[in-house]
């Protein structure tokens, strides 16, 4: 509160650019902080830039194009193990916020419904072409993991098709090039709204035990930057903490606020997406050790927790 007052007195807001890997509900706390003016309250003038893909986010942060990045924790771990001095300092989503969607006609043929057991649902994926984002990426691992739990061979019992962006997934799904896909909201909800698919698995709700509480998207920055501008990072984290608190306490208002950033999206789709993800939104910016461990286990990258994660600011912001 103090810092915000100081900034207010000076009347000069500090300019910060956040490079965000896509526009998606994975970054809800940022939208809320921006719309509700929490950044401004902290004396930050934040500009959000969509830098398509986590590689670009990383490039922007390391190259200095953006002070802060917003993307998956696993990315931070991964590049840390490859020698990049970046740290995650605030959690945004605490679930593996992806959904598995399957074509309605396929589901009907296999008589799988939303009420079927998880095992049945996973078995339904057998023999299908499944769209994922990037080969070797999180969605790839997820599909492989799921199939393996049912003793299916991901390389033989299914065709995994990398489709990069949301813009490629939907048309491929519509013209039956893929019969199922793994993607975050609101792409998955859009496929359902258009009446072509049904939601097979909703990971945001923690349906898969091994992934319940998984730290998904986080804010990251260079260690260097933290060292030189601890106050800025503190302000940033404070604003995010406020936003996350606000979301958990004012669900409906938060929904309206976020809606502003998705004003063109079909209302039904948006509502479903918000609903599906609500449980996943982080309540505090602190990155939990368990959420981190799940990343280690699931994404198969390892780097010391202390090196990758800096909870110093998140913890302060809670006080």
């Amino acid at each position, binding site marked *: 509160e103090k810092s915000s007052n100081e900034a207010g007195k000076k009347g000069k807001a500090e300019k910060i650019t956040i*490079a965000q890997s896509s526009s998606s509900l994975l970054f809800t706390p940022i939208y809320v902080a921006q719309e509700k003016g929490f950044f401004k309250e902290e004396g930050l003038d934040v500009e959000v830039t969509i830098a398509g893909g986590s590689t670009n986010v990383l*490039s922007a942060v390391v190259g200095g194009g953006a002070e802060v990045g917003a993307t998956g924790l696993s990315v931070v771990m991964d590049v840390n193990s490859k020698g990049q001095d970046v740290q995650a300092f605030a959690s945004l989503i605490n679930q593996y916020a992806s959904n598995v969607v399957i074509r309605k006609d396929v589901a009907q043929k296999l008589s799988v419904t939303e009420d079927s057991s998880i095992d049945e649902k996973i078995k339904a994926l057998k023999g299908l072409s499944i769209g994922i984002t990037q080969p070797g990426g999180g969605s790839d691992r997820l599909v492989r993991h799921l199939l393996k739990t049912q003793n299916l061979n991901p390389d033989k019992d299914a065709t995994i098709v990398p489709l990069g962006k949301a813009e490629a997934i939907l048309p491929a799904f519509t013209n039956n090039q893929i019969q199922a896909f793994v993607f975050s909201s609101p792409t998955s909800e859009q496929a359902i709204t258009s009446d072509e698919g049904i939601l097979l698995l909703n990971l945001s709700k923690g349906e898969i035990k091994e992934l319940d509480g998984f730290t998904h998207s986080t804010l990251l920055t260079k260690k260097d930057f933290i060292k030189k501008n601890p106050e800025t990072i503190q302000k940033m984290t404070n604003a995010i903490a406020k936003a996350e608190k606000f979301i958990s306490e004012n669900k409906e208002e938060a929904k309206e606020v976020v809606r502003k950033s998705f004003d063109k999206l079909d209302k039904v789709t948006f509502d479903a997406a918000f609903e599906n993800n609500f449980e996943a939104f982080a309540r505090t910016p602190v990155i939990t050790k368990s959420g981190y461990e799940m990343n280690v286990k699931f994404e198969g990258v390892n780097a010391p927790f202390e090196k990758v994660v800096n909870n110093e600011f998140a913890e302060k912001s809670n006080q």
Partner: protein
Amino acid sequence: MSSEAIIIEQSKKKALSKRKMRKRKEFIKLSIIRLFIIVFTLFIWHFLSGRVIDKFWISSPTDVMQAIYKWTVSGELFYHLSITVQETLLGFVFGALAGGIVGFLLGRWTYGAKIFEPFIMSLYSLPKIALAPLFILWFGIGIDMKIILAAVTVFFLVFINTYAGVRNVDKDMLENIRIMGASERQITFKVVLPSALTWIMVGLRTSIPYALIGAVVGEITASNRGVGYLIQYSAGQYDTGGTFAALIILMLFSIALNFIVTGLIEKRFLRWKTDQSN
């Protein structure tokens, strides 16, 4: 004035006004045909959308108009377009200059061309998307990055055409002016450039749209402003109307730019050619 001279005078005037009339008439006819094609396309589009192909994919003329109208009224259109225009123009100018100069130098320096051409051509064949991380790393996510992306794209296209143009300059003309004692500078400006101009023009025409594409791809890759952002934003929300509106804005801008650049150059420098074709 003799009576014959008067008759000649008169027939002169007649021929003149006839020619002007003919030109104007042809222009009107052409515009009508073009308009007809546009209207026809819109009509087909209107008919298809919702009936044959889901509106979700191809939107509809009315939705697009609405999107454009809304952006115009809210001032967004002007804001975003002005940024894209700025990036495109700067990228085009820098890229075309660099491409022109390098193409020109290598065109004159045959041996250098033999050495460097394969390297330039192989750089040319790298997909810029794959290099996006490096671009962002080095040039950030601001306007610079987009200008550079546009410029790089333009560079190669102008390079290749300028190079070809310079290589195709008539040898006899070169020798003629060389015997007159012209310096390299004079040879360049009095013979090589004017002669390569038709080629350079084609290079420019080829690269104008690519300057735009370069800037927009840059904006799609990393941006919060510009027409590319509008595309990205609309696409992210499955707002096909918005996406198409942004694309149509791009098309219009590109036509305008093409018209201006080629028109200017042709009027100014290729007059002797256009005069001929009449």
